[in-house]
């Protein structure tokens, strides 16, 4: 019985990244190792245009399952390595084929001859392998356009690689290959999706959450920790900053006319996030804003809020509809956590009728009566920093219960 002994990985856009290529490949290797951390026997071999995971007896199915979520992989194929003797390659091709074959299925052969010194050309190779299968499997039919099984044979300098399946990867760029940004994570449906999409483009994401006890509960905070853990499932670990926000929020309620409290609150959150970003060497801030979704997300609001910083603010969801966002949230498994019904800092103090078209100069004026700087410094100082890992939230004391 022949078994796949390696997984061949095809890079996504890394291939176009010129001189940074090695850095990208290295990041990809790291994210693969991190999702496969409990497979001690695997080995990774990376070259300029391919990566191989040598399984050494590990469960190829489970490894494949996990690879599907790794960014920077365009596609991958479980494969076997053989020497380049025709007879051995043919035998391996047949054995692999039979693993997937059921009566009535059609096939084709795709050979790639990277080793230009190999005596047979692509066409002759296709013919040889195709003939071998047809001879040995009665009733088998070729279908070049839409085969059920595509037997891929790649003849390279050092050896030949055979596989029957190409699995779509997650695309994107390797995690952490594009610098660091702070994600404003409220606990709602949108912000985790914004975080996910940013990670997909290679950003190293750290989450910032505003916590206002006793107005918001431990459960609201736990919800955010759970969401961060889900995001950590993509890269292996995500840092979460929890900002004590009660004092500032109360002061805003006292100082700012009710219909402007929302705008002022967002501005202060942004200032604090920007400060945390600076301290942690981030280069951008990510939000889950989507144009026109709520009062704070009109163009006028964004203009008035964005006023407090020059730092690039990334809004991956800006043109998406709510239904599109929910679809992604369900796919990445954050939706059900997000809809747990706890008050967060954005919902507790919502005024009856927030301004949908706040004026920048007005909000500046209202804020000008208090010096928020020391309070901002204090909040940043008191920020709790935690590193979440997938499932790390399963409290220690709970562990033996399950």
């Amino acid at each position, binding site marked *: 019985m022949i078994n796949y002994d390696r997984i061949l990985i095809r890079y996504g856009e890394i291939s176009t990244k010129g001189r940074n290529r090695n850095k990208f490949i290295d990041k990809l290797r790291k994210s693969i190792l991190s999702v496969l951390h409990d497979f001690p026997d695997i080995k990774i071999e990376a070259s300029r245009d391919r990566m191989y995971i040598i399984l050494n007896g590990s469960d190829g199915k489970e490894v494949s399952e996990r690879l599907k979520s790794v960014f920077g992989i365009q596609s991958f194929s479980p494969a076997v390595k053989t020497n380049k003797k025709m007879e051995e390659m043919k035998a391996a091709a047949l054995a692999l084929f039979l693993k997937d074959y059921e009566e009535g299925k059609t096939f084709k052969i795709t050979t790639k001859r990277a080793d230009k010194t190999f005596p047979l050309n692509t066409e002759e190779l296709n013919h040889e392998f195709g003939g071998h299968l047809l001879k040995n499997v009665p009733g088998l039919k070729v279908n070049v356009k839409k085969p059920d099984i595509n037997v891929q044979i790649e003849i390279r300098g050092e050896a030949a690689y055979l596989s029957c399946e190409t699995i779509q990867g997650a695309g994107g760029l390797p995690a952490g290959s594009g610098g660091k940004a702070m994600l404003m994570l409220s606990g709602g449906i949108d912000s985790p999706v914004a975080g996910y999409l940013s990670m997909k483009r290679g950003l190293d994401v750290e989450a910032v959450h505003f916590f206002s006890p006793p107005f918001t509960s431990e459960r609201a905070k736990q919800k955010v920790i759970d969401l961060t853990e889900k995001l950590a499932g993509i890269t292996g670990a995500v840092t979460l900053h929890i900002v004590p926000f009660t004092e500032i929020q109360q002061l805003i309620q006292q100082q700012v006319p009710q219909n402007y409290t929302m705008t002022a609150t967002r501005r202060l959150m942004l200032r604090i996030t920007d400060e945390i970003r600076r301290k942690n060497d981030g280069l951008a801030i990510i939000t889950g804003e989507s144009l026109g979704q709520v009062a704070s997300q009109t163009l006028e609001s964004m203009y008035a809020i964005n006023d407090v910083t020059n730092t690039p603010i990334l809004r991956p969801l800006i043109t998406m509809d709510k239904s599109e966002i929910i679809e992604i949230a369900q796919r990445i498994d954050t939706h059900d956590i997000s809809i747990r019904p706890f008050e967060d800092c954005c919902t507790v103090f919502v005024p009856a009728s927030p301004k949908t078209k706040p004026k920048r100069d007005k909000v500046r004026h209202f804020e000008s009566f208090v010096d928020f700087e020391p309070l901002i410094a204090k909040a940043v100082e008191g920020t709790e920093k935690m590193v979440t890992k997938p499932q790390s939230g399963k409290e220690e004391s709970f562990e033996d*219960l*399950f």
Partner: protein
Amino acid sequence: MIYFDNSATTKPYKEVLDSYIKVSSDFFGNPSSLHGIGGQAERLLMHAREQIAQLLDVRHSEIYFTSGGTESNNLAIKGTALMHRNRGRHIITTAIEHASVRETMEQLRELGFRVTFVQPDRRGIVSVEEIEKAITSETFLVSVMHVNNEIGSIQPIKEIGQLVKKHSKIIYHVDNVQGIGKVPMDFYEANIDLCTLSAHKFHGLKGNGVLFIREGVRLSPLFSGGNQEWKQRSGTENVAGIVAMAKALRITLNNKERYLDELLSVKNYLMEELEKMEGIAVHTPDIHAAPHIINFSVKGFKAEVFVHALEEKDIYVSTTSACSSKKAAASSTLVAMGVPEKDAKSAVRISLTYENTREEAAVFIAAVKETVNRLREVMK
């Protein structure tokens, strides 16, 4: 003590009891309470749900906690009937179901639904063709058990699922109380909409069960109240029992990985030895049978006499299913299979679990031989 009545109930694992006691005393909060103590209980509930979903290879939003197999079966069947009565008035089930399905069907029949009870073959297995023949344009529910509780026959769940899939308005319920942890079954592959589990059959505690409700399937709840379990099952959650159940399922599935071969060899040994004995008829089929249930008749004796005779030797088996064994009636499964009523009345069931050993099996066989001989003397 030799306990061979694991299909009636199993002994809870010690680790399972530990969890139950710890959760009951340290995390006693109501998951719906707003405060931290409630929050902790809610997190436990969530972890349990996630763990069970993961073990069953389904989504956690598809796991609903109930009080056990009987409630899950009632909720699945009546909930579907109440919700979808506009789809039709006809239900298909089998003649070998557990009482909690059978009696529920009877109740629905009194309410004006039509119910077809598909008969099994002589091995205690219903055929896909028979189910197909029974389907009408009025059929909205098909309910079939996975492993029969009395003789251990395995029903063609996956094949029936493929059949039902062709009829988009039919909801497919599977009673998997006896199959879980013993006979593998992929919920999605089998196209199952509703599936029943009971904790105390896999070394959890009585009073806990699961109803799997596939995403998108809607039921009318039987309990109204505080809208727990996404409104499908009101009532404060039995958090301690649920956590214990999650643990019991994990341990059971682990044991299955490690000890299924041993369990099978104990069962095969018992089957062979019983088949050799004169005056004993084994009803459990050789193939398409679960690895833990054997049903046989000791011809000429009432099963009850035999059960008590073995009990004197500290060996515990049962007559038919525990839920119906107090009635004098013959096993409905055996009667449906065409076993003569006299033999059906002398049917004994042994049901195993992973802790049972070959040595116990040998002691059991010797005891059966001795008991049969002794009773024959008396009855002469």
